[in-house]
């Protein structure tokens, strides 16, 4: 019988790649590719947080800053949205559990080996390598062992 264990995914995970090229609008800022030995089970109530800075080193501001999280198949041809696309302000909290964004899922989402979790951000100023390095995100979920 498989067991579930708490798993905290951050942008510094070794299986996360980041898009450090300059660009405005929607971008796949961080992409986690699930390794071969792992499966994640994303459920309603899992917590998501993201802090983002633009290329002027200014924190994302409303109204044009938005965030979304997708689960994509390895080839990218199939996707399911697990968060957003919501205003940035909704997911910027990392500490207070009453304020952190919770996933509003209708059903659990299984992330299989080689599947990807894609953290997408959008604003009009854009991000570059330095601002991506200053930005960070976290998804508190479960892995199946």
């Amino acid at each position, binding site marked *: 019988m498989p067991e579930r264990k708490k798993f905290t995914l951050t942008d510094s995970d070794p299986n996360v790649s980041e898009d450090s090229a300059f660009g405005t609008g929607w971008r796949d800022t961080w992409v986690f590719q699930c390794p071969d030995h792992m499966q994640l089970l994303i459920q309603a109530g899992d917590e998501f947080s993201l802090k983002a800075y633009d290329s002027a080193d200014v924190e994302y501001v*409303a*109204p*044009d800053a*938005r965030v*979304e999280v997708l689960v994509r198949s390895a080839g990218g041809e199939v996707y*399911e*949205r*697990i*968060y*957003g*696309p*919501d*205003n940035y*302000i*909704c997911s910027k*909290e990392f500490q207070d559990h*009453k*304020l*952190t*964004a919770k*996933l*509003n*899922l*209708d*059903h659990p989402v299984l992330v299989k080996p080689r599947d990807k979790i894609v953290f997408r951000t*959008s604003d009009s100023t854009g991000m570059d390598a330095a601002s991506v390095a200053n930005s960070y995100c976290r998804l508190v979920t479960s892995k199946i062992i």
Partner: protein
Amino acid sequence: MLIEPFVITQEDSDVTQADTTAGVMGDLFSYRVPKGKSIILRPSDVLCLDLDNTAAAVAANTCVVKLEKRDQTGAEKTPIIDKLQYASFAASGVGEFQDEDKLIHLDINNEIEVGEQEYLVLMGNNPTTGLDKDTSFMSLRTHSKR
């Protein structure tokens, strides 16, 4: 059919934005459901707002807000949130988007489906100055079906 979380914001490409006129209930953000998709509204869904007026100040606490569903012609209207003061969404004019204890849930008893090409419209009536589409923003946390 896949039901997944979906948030309608003012920046969605299917949203039409318009400033409103002072003292008149007008459409601020109008979302038209694209083809091949529908929106599933539930009583647990949340609407968050931050409204500014066209004089670069926050909207009045007494600004009246409505959210309604409209059919494809715009003629048949169903209230989803009916005439709620902006003060319900904001403290000192700053909209609440995070605190679970303060978020506003939809004023419906059952699930409502908004079909393709139908509308969800956020309306506002700010007493002395119209609402500014460029500095106001919203999040309607709901689900979509595709």
